[in-house]
């Protein structure tokens, strides 16, 4: 049972445009969400996170939105740059648990 789902395996966006990556979850216990970025042959790196007490968190070009009633979060990248081309993983956790549950990832390609 996939508790964190990323239904779009891939996304292609033109440079300068907005990239929107989506993530859905089923476990209502989740109260903290993270996005990781992964380049080929490297480990994932932390990008941005959001607590369930917020509905938005912004860091430069990256903004994460959380809709708890819909159990949905999204990552917006504006403007998209070629260096943003990578696989993006959504992850969730709850309470004092240290474990993260990851989605299957979305491959973003930013074209010139």
């Amino acid at each position, binding site marked *: 049972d996939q508790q964190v789902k990323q239904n779009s395996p891939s996304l292609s966006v033109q440079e300068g445009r907005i990239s929107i990556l989506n993530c859905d979850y089923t476990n209502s216990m989740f109260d903290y969400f*993270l996005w990781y970025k992964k380049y080929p042959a490297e480990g994932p790196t*932390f990008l941005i996170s959001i607590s369930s007490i917020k509905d938005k968190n912004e860091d430069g070009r990256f903004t994460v939105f959380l809709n708890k009633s819909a159990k949905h979060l999204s990552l917006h990248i504006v403007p998209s740059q070629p260096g943003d081309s990578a696989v993006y993983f959504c992850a969730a956790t709850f*309470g004092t648990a240290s*474990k993260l549950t990851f989605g299957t*990832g979305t491959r973003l390609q930013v074209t010139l």
Partner: protein
Amino acid sequence: DAGITQSPRYKITETGRQVTLMCHQTWSHSYMFWYRQDLGHGLRLIYYSAAADITDKGEVPDGYVVSRSKTENFPLTLESATRSQTSVYFCASRGTSGITSEQYFGPGTRLTVT
């Protein structure tokens, strides 16, 4: 070098062999994790450790063994490798500064079981 390292980076082994993947971190982080990454499954937790000598199962622990005698090391052993264990394995660590402390990942080990 500071950070989190994994060795080997690439490994080919035969079915039935025992193989150990190494993970070392220099931050003295309490928590360490092992994940495997497979197409269509994302990252799945195999085992994790909250401190030296404390380990617990994750989502897919069968066929794997871990130990943590020192804070900085967290080896993962495949006791009798199977083809289904062909995967990319990532080690991660995090501190104890609350839930907002993100995990830091190593570069991964690509394991092929023939």
